[in-house]
């Protein structure tokens, strides 16, 4: 699997780039979290304590290179440092607490959006010239709608006005987390609106992307041939056209994951969802370098892994890659 090895190499390189970028950005930019903390506490901290806190937060004066080596060393041990916002909690703990929510929400929502979007795209391309073309303008519109605006609108309609769904947090206040049906139900109920937001906002891209590739694919000789063979429309549509049209879409889907993750950060914030997006914003607001770095790293790595999985899927789905490269 030479192809995969190459891709893996690339992802490792990218991961390294992300890690290094992550290290560099905060160090190249001005700002001091302790000062900020003091300002936020409006004088509840005496300025004289600042130096001591600075040390406690691990803000160091060592050379950049030394810091980089330390940073890599710590990373290798899975240590992301201590969060400043949640001091003395470890960044890894903060992330471990919030990541499952994001993965669950974004994962499920993306899957749904992918499945529905792809299917709709296929069907719309197949039934060109019918009323289904009417979905196109709607999809074009949805393609350009900000995630958080969709979220706001859903909150307004279903949360505030109709009160059908809860509009914040990940599960009910009175439910204790655990492997209970009650907890699961509460989680699903609370995830409904955020998930719908992500599905609605990200589906349009899938529809449009799939439709375009599918339309092009429909013009391919092998689709015409399949039709000429007298196969059922279903078979021509899925096994011949869609099956091939999905291939170029896999890569673009994987790449669009980054956008979905970005959008879900905003969505989480609107819904006060205790995921990684809310944490990221908190980190940014508090100039919490370690937390921001940790989260950005985790998001990047997650997107990288997703991309690698997409490559795997590509290899599985496209017999040509099993032999050739690129």
């Amino acid at each position, binding site marked *: 699997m030479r192809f995969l090895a190459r891709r893996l190499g*690339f*992802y490792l*390189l*990218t991961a390294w*780039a*992300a890690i290094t*970028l992550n290290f560099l*950005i*905060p160090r*190249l*930019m*001005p*700002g001091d979290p302790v000062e900020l903390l003091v300002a936020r506490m409006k004088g509840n901290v005496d300025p004289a304590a600042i130096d001591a806190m600075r040390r406690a937060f691990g803000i160091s004066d060592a050379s950049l290179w030394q810091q980089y080596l330390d940073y890599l060393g710590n990373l290798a041990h899975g240590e992301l440092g201590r969060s400043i916002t949640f001091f003395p909690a470890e960044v890894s703990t903060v992330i471990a607490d919030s990541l499952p929510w994001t993965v669950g929400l974004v994962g499920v929502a993306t899957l749904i959006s992918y499945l529905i979007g792809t299917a709709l795209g296929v069907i719309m391309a197949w039934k*060109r*010239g019918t009323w289904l*073309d009417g979905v196109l303008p709607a999809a*074009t*519109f949805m*393609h*350009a*709608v*900000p*995630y*958080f*605006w969709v979220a*706001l*609108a859903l*909150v*307004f309609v279903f*949360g*505030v*006005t109709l009160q059908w769904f809860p509009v914040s947090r990940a599960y009910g206040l009175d439910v204790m987390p655990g492997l209970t049906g009650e907890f699961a139900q509460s989680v699903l109920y609370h995830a409904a609106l955020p998930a719908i937001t992500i599905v609605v906002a990200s589906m349009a891209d899938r529809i449009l992307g799939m439709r*375009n590739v599918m*339309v*092009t694919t*429909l*013009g391919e000789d092998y689709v015409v041939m399949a039709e000429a063979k007298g196969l059922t429309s279903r078979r021509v549509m899925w096994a011949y056209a869609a099956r091939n049209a999905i291939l170029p879409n896999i890569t673009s889907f994987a*790449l669009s*994951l*980054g*956008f979905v*993750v*970005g*959008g879900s*950060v*905003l969505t989480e*914030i*609107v819904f006060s969802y205790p995921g990684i997006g809310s944490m*990221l*914003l908190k*980190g*940014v607001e508090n100039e919490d370098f370690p937390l*921001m770095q940790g*989260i*950005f790293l985790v*998001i*990047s790595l997650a*997107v*990288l892994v997703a*991309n690698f999985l997409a490559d795997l899927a590509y290899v599985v789905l496209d017999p040509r890659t099993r032999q050739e490269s690129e």
Partner: protein
Amino acid sequence: MKIKLGAGILVFFALMAVFGPLLIGADPAATSEDGLQGPSAQHWLGTTQTGQDILVQIVYGARVSLGVGVLSALIATVLAVAVGLVGGYVGGAVDEALSVLTNIFLVLPALPLIIVLAGYLPQRGVASVAVVIAVTGWAWGARVLRAQTLSVRRRDFVQAARASGEGPLRIVFYEILPVLLPVIATSFLATVVAAILAEAGLSFLGLADLSTVSWGSMLYFAQNGQALLIGAWWWFIPPGLCIALIGTGLALVNFGIDEIANPRLRTIKAPRKARA
């Protein structure tokens, strides 16, 4: 058809951004004591909590939102063209390096990166926000342009130009670049959409300059002012709608260009059976 509709929307907003403020004249930040009024003859789109006129804000906001969008798309497109064309044309190690760079930026999730970068920005003016967005948004274009350059470079007319003795710069700018114009145009428009959305997202998070009125900052204030709870729909609907409309306009123009390049994509009416 699509292009016309899309261009119509764009022209409308562009005119609004350029001439709207001159026509309206009022200060978008000016507060008044009639806060939170619904749409009325006096305030067509109602007012914010501090009595700012929403229509005036929308008109001024168009400037910022479109400005950031266009500015960062310009920067991103220049970057994309440079990286894509150089990589695609020069090839070899330079190309390898550039395409790894491109792919890295492509895979790294943009919005979190923008948020992180914006978090560190010392100045959050329109220009710096645009730069941050551009820095994270050029990779798509570069990738597409590189692929196109690679294929154009192999085309016979480029080979022919080289064989007749043209220099590399001339080949890039006179032979390859014109062919890539439609691609550059689509990538530019797509970047404008992405940049407008990114700016809105940043403002919404309070990470852009909130004393300039943009659609994103309007949404930020609406959210902070609990427009949802108060039922002040006129406060948060219009800015979001404008963003979406501009995005739709750009996307329509883009699809139009795509359809010209790839006629198969056109929506068609199933022809009636016109058989004798």
